[in-house]
């Protein structure tokens, strides 16, 4: 059996501060190339789970490993670099630096990920910038969008730029935190179609969270957060 894209085992995490929110996840596994949707109501700890998965916060106990690497074993600087190399991240909204151009936004993670930059540069003629332009075109962003400040785009366009940024350099894992919640139903459909196509082209696994169970049909697997993790509030106060 090949390494899983992402595994969590016996993980426990508590947000610092009084009455901190605690999440524990005994066992979770995401296979390579798998598309998984994680459902849960607002405040149930979905974003906390994703933060743990991509090492923005570190588990108090247990082990999070990505492609066989134990995140907890990395020093914090190395973990940041590792995240840049292995994860494409898409948030709910306000994904982009509004003052920077679309191109700079897409290329930003490459700044911290040399291997990913090399992949993006070698993806075709013209280097990383051409690859960014190709992704924009594939995501049906209008021509000439690359030089525009990201803050000028519509919300849907910004989300697609965020997808391009997540996909550039083909990171093995795409993590999306409710990327469609700001879009209407039709736009959601188009958006997910594009995301799936491009993730498949790049060969990336996809871990997406949402509170909207209508999206489930298009994924390989759908889980509810409470099936894989127990949450508590104020336990460790």
């Amino acid at each position, binding site marked *: 059996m090949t390494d899983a894209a992402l595994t969590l085992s016996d993980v426990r995490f508590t947000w*610092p501060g009084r009455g901190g929110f605690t999440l524990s996840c005994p066992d979770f596994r995401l296979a390579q190339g798998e598309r998984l949707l994680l459902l849960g109501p607002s405040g149930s700890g979905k*974003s*906390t789970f*994703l*933060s743990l998965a*991509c090492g*923005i*916060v570190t588990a108090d106990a247990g082990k999070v490993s990505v492609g066989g690497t134990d995140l907890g074993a990395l020093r*914090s*600087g190395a973990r*940041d*670099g590792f*995240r*840049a*190399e292995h994860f494409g*991240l898409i*948030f*709910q909204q*306000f*994904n*982009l*630096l*509004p*003052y*920077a*151009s679309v191109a*700079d936004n897409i*290329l*930003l*993670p490459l*700044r*911290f*990920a040399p291997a990913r930059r090399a992949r993006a540069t070698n993806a075709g003629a013209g280097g990383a910038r051409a690859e960014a332009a190709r992704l924009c075109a594939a995501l049906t962003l209008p021509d000439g969008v690359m030089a525009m*400040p990201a*803050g000028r785009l519509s919300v849907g366009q910004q989300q697609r730029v965020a997808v391009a*940024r997540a996909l550039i350099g083909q990171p093995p894992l795409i993590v999306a*935190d409710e990327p469609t919640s700001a879009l209407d139903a039709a736009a959601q459909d188009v958006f997910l179609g594009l995301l799936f196509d491009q993730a498949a082209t790049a060969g990336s696994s996809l871990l997406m969270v949402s509170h909207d169970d209508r999206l489930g049909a298009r994924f390989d697997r759908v889980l509810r957060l409470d099936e894989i993790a127990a949450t508590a509030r104020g336990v460790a106060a």
Partner: protein
Amino acid sequence: MILRLAIGSLLARGLTVGMTVLAIALSVGLFVGVEKVRTGARDSFADTISGTDLIVGARSGSVQLLLYSVFRIGNATNNVTWESYLDIAARPEVDWIVPISLGDSHRQFRVMGTTQAFFERYRYRGGRALEMAQGHGLDDLYDAVIGADVAATLGYSVGDPIVVSHGLASFTDHADQPFRVAGIVARTGTPVDRTVIVSLEAIEAIHVDWQGGAQVPGRRTPVEAIREMDLTPTAITAALVGTESRLQIFGLQRWINTYPEEPLLAVLPGVALQELWQIVGVAETALVAVSAMVVVTALLGMMAMILSSLNERRREMAIWRAMGARPVTILGLLVLEAALMAALGALLGMALLYGALAMARPWIDASFGIWLPIDPPSAREVWVLASVIGGAALASLLPALRAYRMSLADGMMVRI
């Protein structure tokens, strides 16, 4: 790319950043401006007299002697008798000696009685001699030679009549003996520009009918009679002395300072200037300190601006972190932004300063007799600019550390 993004982020907050940069620019301009005026004033003072080995006057303070004899600031408390003057002039060490007699005025300008030797011996700015812009020197008893400022301010040209007033701020004129402008000295940037020069004999002549500082009532000696009189002065205010050899300066100085007939004082102009700087130094230091505080205030303002912007930029920081930027990178980013603002402010401040200098220079020269040079920034000024930028980076460390901690604690979902 990071630099480009930092600049983009600054531009996006154009107004607040602009105000901060302006505050830094003004403070830097003020600080360097104070420096420039300070050194300019020093140089201009030091340039006022050169080639004179000793200044001799009645015994008082050496700074006082320097100020009244060379800079026409303040007054002599006592005179030097003509006999003492002749004794000094007769010393073998003395190469040349120029007597100076002060005490009268014309409008706001002082009148100085001296001899033709003044025009030959007086040197300024590293040995430059006086030159006539118009006319000639003192030929006739009632000839006056005026400085460039006198001519410009009062609109005089050669041939115009001048009436000398008695004392410095008095309403009694020597109206019965008018002078004639014989020549105008080319601009020197020294107090000579603001002086009316007449002969020693003329000073005697206008005081023929005066006794003890008041005109003798009813006495009016006709000009023709005065021209026939012996107009050798009885006293002078001070004298400039040049020695045969520099080695003799101290010997001559000692001789004058221990002159038994009359308490006299001889000072080396350079030494007296040094003493003057020591007195002025305190005020200078205070001025520099105040303008340095203004720079510090501007930097504190920048710090407050960065701190208050942190909350609205939390999202931005979270994006950087999620993209793989380390907290140290966030810290570096904020420090870089601060350094950029300070650098821009420093450059703008220098530009403002040079602009202001170019415009105000003629006015400063006219009002204070200080000609400020427009030089490229001195090493000291470059150092000041560098420390402003360094100080800004340092001041930004506090907000940057806060951002660092925030970005560690926030995780990837910042609520807005």
